[in-house]
């Protein structure tokens, strides 16, 4: 495409290599002024890498960047900021124990003489911005005390404060409720009307359809072309992104729920600061049924799982597993009671990354006599066992049992965790954010495994911040808000807006 001043940003022939791996292979991007331009691609396709190059965090090995028709060299974020580029990262770049104002002015402070901060003037400047764009943000609040939606607005303010004309939003909706997403889309259109240009990175098709004018697609580092969103469909975008036709729905037969496997009554759990995160919560999960918990991050999901797995103490209430008390026991007791858990953060809770793959497969079961007599651990047996799992669950690369777990891709790491959890034939499988950061193929695998485990007769508790996932996979959907279950529905009896309302603390008429 030709270089022209009609375009806010043009990136041509961008190549980026990390060692032997080519992350971006001659990728193009042409963003018209005053439009919302989406960049679509799977996890690991290279979207974020491309934007990090535009923002000066990485340097491209080949290619050129143009802004308004002029070639620019962006070697660091300062340059990017000078050229009017602002970026809102997927994981917010906010200092948690700073106030909103401090976060916004950081690096471009309002100072009197000799670098002494003038916080009053800074606050006024921030307030002026807040008023101009109609954001609902308290400049004196600390980041750790405000909602995720507000934090995102602070990130946008940070960019606007620096005079950004082009805003990059990296997966901006990952952590928002449907209502907050709507509000964000409103904000985006408002910004366009005020002359800004927006680039959003996402793998969510629906939002592209709702918000974007054009959409560039990247598959495994290769540019797949640009699509006019108005004349396209979700299915077309999806097949371009993945490179084959994908099944966007989950295949499963109706559930045949059996006896109650997990019974929670009046459970209250405090976090380490002593604040109640789970508040007298009741929940039943039956054998042969998938119960999905919908909710926004931070509404007690983590504490609920921690209490069931006995990582933290419950304040009051009971957790029973097949009628047997499990409240305030040990993680070991939890496992022995027939509970297996796919943790939300696999690097933190699920895996010992410096261990070999084979060592990771027996984290719970290394004490079994099967893996060595007495105090010894039989590494030959470990390897043999792991080879079986690798075959059965198609963990790649094949024959990776002696490799370090850290060397596997995210999807294969998740497969290794699922293999480990499923082979213990649990009566209750807890899946907390099981598809976080996975690509479409791996997501399909995870969902199929959950359904297969259900059909084996296990009870499944699925907790996810992705509303679509909860709606697609669960037989029963429960909504958690402020540490309580505020509604329970059979699949298909509730729509997205109703759930979103409950998730945000509203009530159904």
């Amino acid at each position, binding site marked *: 495409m030709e270089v022209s001043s009609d375009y806010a940003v043009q990136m041509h022939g961008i190549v980026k290599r990390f060692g032997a791996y080519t992350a971006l292979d001659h990728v193009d991007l042409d963003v018209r002024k005053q439009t919302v331009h989406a960049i679509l691609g799977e996890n690991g396709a290279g979207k974020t890498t491309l934007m990090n190059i535009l923002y000066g965090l990485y340097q491209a090995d080949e290619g050129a960047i143009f802004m308004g028709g002029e070639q620019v060299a962006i070697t660091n974020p300062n340059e990017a900021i000078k050229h009017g580029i602002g970026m809102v990262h997927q994981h917010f770049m906010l200092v948690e124990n700073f106030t909103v104002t401090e976060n916004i002015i950081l690096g471009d402070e309002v100072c009197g003489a000799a670098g002494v901060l003038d916080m009053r003037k800074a606050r006024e400047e921030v307030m002026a911005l807040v008023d101009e764009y109609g954001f609902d943000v308290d400049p004196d609040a600390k980041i750790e005390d405000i909602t995720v939606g507000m934090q995102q607005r602070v990130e946008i303010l940070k960019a606007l404060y620096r005079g950004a004309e082009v805003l990059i939003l990296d997966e901006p909706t990952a952590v928002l409720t449907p209502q907050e997403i709507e509000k964000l889309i409103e904000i985006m259109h408002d910004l366009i009307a005020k002359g800004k240009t927006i680039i959003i990175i996402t793998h969510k098709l629906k939002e592209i359809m709702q918000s974007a004018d054009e959409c560039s697609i990247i598959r495994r580092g290769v540019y797949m072309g640009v699509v006019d969103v108005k004349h396209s469909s979700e299915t077309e975008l999806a097949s371009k992104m993945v490179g084959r036709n994908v099944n966007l729905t989950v295949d499963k037969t109706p559930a045949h729920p059996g006896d109650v496997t997990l019974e929670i009554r009046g459970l209250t759990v405090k976090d380490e600061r002593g604040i109640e995160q789970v508040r007298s919560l009741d929940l039943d999960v039956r054998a042969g049924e998938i119960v999905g918990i919908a909710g926004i991050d931070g509404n007690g999901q983590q504490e609920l799982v921690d209490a069931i797995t006995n990582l933290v103490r419950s304040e009051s209430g009971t957790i029973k597993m097949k009628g047997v008390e499990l409240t305030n026991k040990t993680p*070991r007791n939890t496992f022995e009671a027939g509970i297996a858990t796919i943790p939300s953060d696999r690097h933190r809770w699920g895996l010992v990354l410096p261990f070999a793959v084979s060592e990771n497969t027996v*984290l719970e079961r290394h004490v079994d006599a099967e893996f060595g007599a007495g105090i010894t651990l039989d590494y030959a047996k470990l390897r043999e066992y792991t080879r079986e799992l690798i075959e059965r669950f198609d963990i790649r690369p094949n024959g990776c049992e002696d490799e370090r777990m850290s060397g596997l891709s995210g999807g294969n790491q998740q497969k290794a965790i699922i293999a480990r959890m499923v082979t213990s034939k649990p009566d209750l499988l807890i899946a907390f954010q099981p598809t976080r950061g996975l690509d479409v193929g791996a997501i399909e695998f995870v969902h199929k495994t959950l359904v297969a485990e259900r059909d084996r007769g296990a009870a499944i508790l699925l907790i996810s911040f992705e509303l679509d996932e909860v709606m697609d996979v669960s037989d029963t959907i429960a909504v958690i808000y402020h540490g309580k279950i505020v509604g329970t529905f059979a699949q298909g009896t509730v729509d997205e807006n109703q759930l979103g309302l409950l998730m945000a603390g509203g009530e159904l008429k």
Partner: protein
Amino acid sequence: MRGLEKFLRSRFAAALIAVLVGLLVAAVVLISAGYDPIASFGALLNGAFGKPKYITNVFIKATPILLTGVSVAFAFKTGLFNIGAEGQYIVGTILATIVGVSLNLPMPLQIPVVLFAGVVGGAALGAFVGWLKARFGIHEVITSIMCNWIAFYLCNFVVMSDTFHKPNSQSAFPVNPSSYTMILGSWKKSDAGKEFLLGVKWLREVLLKTDLNVGFLVAILVAVLISWVLTRTKLGYELRAVGFNRDAARFSGISVESNIVLSMLIAGGISGLAGALAITGTSPHTITLLAAMEGYGFNGMSVAFIAGCAPIGCIPASIMFSALIYGGMSVQQALGVPSDIINITIGTIVFFTALPGIAPFFADRVKQRREAKELANGAQAGEA
């Protein structure tokens, strides 16, 4: 160049580079202070390996730092920093002395009892630090250092106490001879022994002029045992899992707290054994008034780091450091070079082992140069 690049990425290369840089820094310091580095290194080598007696002493001096090295290495493999080996060693010497003075059992009983006392002392101190970490989350480095100083003053307290102080001396009473672990200790002083040794000069020197004892053999056994525990047992598996990722270990049902205490208990016990073996194996067979830290624990850390915290690797590393330290004393005698030059050398070596990136950094340089050359060659080929 590919071979060089691969070598530079190996752990051995990292150790070798660290040692070479350490010696280089020492040479620079020596030159700038007006000494002859070649002569100094010569005196060092001679002082360490010049006579059978010297070589024997190198092994004797290697014993405590091999054990404290294994202690540090073991703890490190389980995610803990045992900077308290020094204090555990001191407590080991204190308890071994107290028990060795108070009890006088037949030798086959006395020796194990005295050694065990040292192990218990070190283990208790180690476990205390482990407990503080597991229960209160206090970083083991700070508490260990505090415990080192408490052990230091405890030693002086025991030395000066009415019960144990040997009058008119700077030390406590020596332990009963039934605690001695010298090789052929009584035979070499008997008439038959003396007569035999008259004929074999090197053996006479080794046996009579040094405190050759079983310590180094025991230390090697411990190193092998610890290596086995770490890599071939369920206990070692759990300890390493806790060391690498505490959260994942807890999540999968492994008790993090008890493993931390256990790890420090074992590490402390090994350092305590080092102290006990020093009492039973070498003169003066007792504790003396301490003026400054003697450095057995700190040198153990150097041993562990240069060995990449592999217990077996500590064996050659301890011999090397022992040669440096022991040989370094003769540098002072021969040339008047302050023996602190050895501490500078060792400190530099440890500093460079702390830089995990240093050898790979050079490896990257080599690789870049190779790639640049290949690119250039390719371009030439293309033009042709």
